């Protein structure tokens, strides 16, 4: 191979790695701003919910900022759900999450955005996000799941449904007070189980 060809080939194969390294370093050095304010952590006052031996707590960041490389900063709602199994036996969890603003249109969690911000959250809270769709929870074990929802600027209140049980959902309510978001109640909502 001629030297010129080797240089061209090297340029092609190294390009993705060099771009990747530059972006990784840029994110790591904080040149691309990522900041957030903790709004709720139910683990502090034992505010979580327990049902059928599974305790659910959550940490809520109401304004996790994320800046796409070529676009402006956007804010996201970030929940980190902490699951504890107080049963004597193992359980397998398959959680799903729904965000519902007024008007009852239902939105699913944005896994892609979670992926980009999870390093920061894992470092901040010292947790480990679960990636499988289902995961096993041994007795007395705690596992964490990061959930991100897109945030509309005019939003005043919303609730989030957490589905991990067959018969009920955990519904968590938030409302806007001044510039912050207040957690004001949570409840168990029965689910329809039928053939329809």
């Amino acid at each position: 191979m001629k030297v010129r060809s080797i240089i061209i080939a090297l340029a092609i194969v190294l390009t993705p790695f060099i771009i990747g390294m530059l972006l990784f370093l840029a994110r790591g050095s904080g040149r691309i701003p990522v900041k957030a304010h903790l709004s709720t952590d139910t683990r502090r006052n034992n505010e979580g919910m327990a049902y059928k031996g599974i305790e659910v707590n959550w940490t809520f960041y109401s304004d996790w900022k994320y800046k796409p490389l070529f676009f402006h900063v956007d804010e996201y709602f970030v929940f980190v759900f902490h699951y504890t199994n107080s049963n004597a036996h193992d359980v397998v969890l398959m959680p799903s999450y729904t965000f519902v603003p007024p008007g009852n249109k239902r939105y699913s969690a944005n896994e892609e955005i979670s992926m980009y911000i999870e390093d920061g959250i894992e470092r901040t809270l010292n947790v480990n996000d679960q990636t499988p769709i289902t995961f096993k929870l041994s007795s007395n074990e705690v596992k964490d799941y990061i959930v991100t929802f897109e945030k509309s600027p005019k939003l005043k209140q919303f609730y989030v449904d957490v589905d991990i049980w067959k018969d009920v959902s955990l519904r968590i309510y938030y409302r806007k007070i001044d510039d912050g978001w207040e957690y004001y109640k949570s409840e168990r909502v029965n689910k329809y189980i039928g053939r329809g």
Partner: protein
Amino acid sequence: MFKKIVKNFGPEWGAVVMGTAALCITMQLSSEVARGFSSLLYVGLGFYLLTTVMLITFLIPWTLRFFMYPEEIKKDLEHPIRGNFFPTMPICFILAGTGTNKLGPMLFGPWFAYHLSIVFFLLGVIGIFTFGFLLVRTQFLNKEIRHEHANFSWFIPPVSHLIIPVLGACSMDVYWAETSLAPVLFIISMIALGVGVLNFFFVGAAIWHRYIYTDIPNGKLASTTMVGIAPTSIIVIVLIKFIQAIEASHGSLFGINFMSLFSPVKIIASVLWGFSFWWLVVVIILLHNYIKMKDHPFVFGWWAYTFPLEAFVVATGLLAKCVATSFLHGMLITLNTLVVAVWIVVVFRTIKWLESGAFFKPQH
């Protein structure tokens, strides 16, 4: 010079973009495995940007050739090997759309990325169905095609249809689940899945027949054997992306229930992944045979070693979300390293091949 490039810019060049594009997804999946690998997400972004540059660069001569040299296009379409490579460029749209869906939010934010990926989806669908019909017509009406022409590049048209639901399901997963576009994405994806799966069986039987009853292809076609790993790998990807789309639709999409479907999907996906793994061993056995016969020269077709293997890596990464997570995570990292190594080797050999002037001597 440019005219000469356009004239010789065969349909197979889409395979280069395909082989590069899928690496951004394998990197993204590998980055999820453990904190130590999270930087791979950014390498994936690098591959995504490289893919975009390649796609735009290659699309210009590829498109111009249709207008400037229609007789060359006709000749290629009727060729039993090269003709099958026409859908590779529309496949690139689907792959670029999938990359945009997964990595685009990091660059452009979710709204723009998810809309752009839909544009790629529609362009890909139009191209894949158009070439699918053209190639079937050509094969059915071509009196020159014989048993001994069958080879694994014939899998490319079925694979092109199978890949449509990958982006269809990805799009339904995060953004379009509860919109009026969801039924459109669903129907197009299911039609393409049906076409892809059944054509995979029909074409597979023809190729199997040839491999058993006549000689196996010469060493120039050795790499096409790897294409056989792709269909089942892509079906695994489709199944798992589809189940994720149902999950994102709050457990029920068009009345298809997540809870009732997830267990069978785990079994079927594992079985199909198993076939792909078995086929990888078959490829190694045949490759060993070609090397032993000293009949494995570099040809442009070596790009067939990249994308199908990468599809298998993506299938491994997604299956790890459902079953045997620790074991498959180990395999994912190992295979991801392997596909990068294969890609680097093929890039170097392609540059050497271009240096030799082989680009201007197409073999019909």
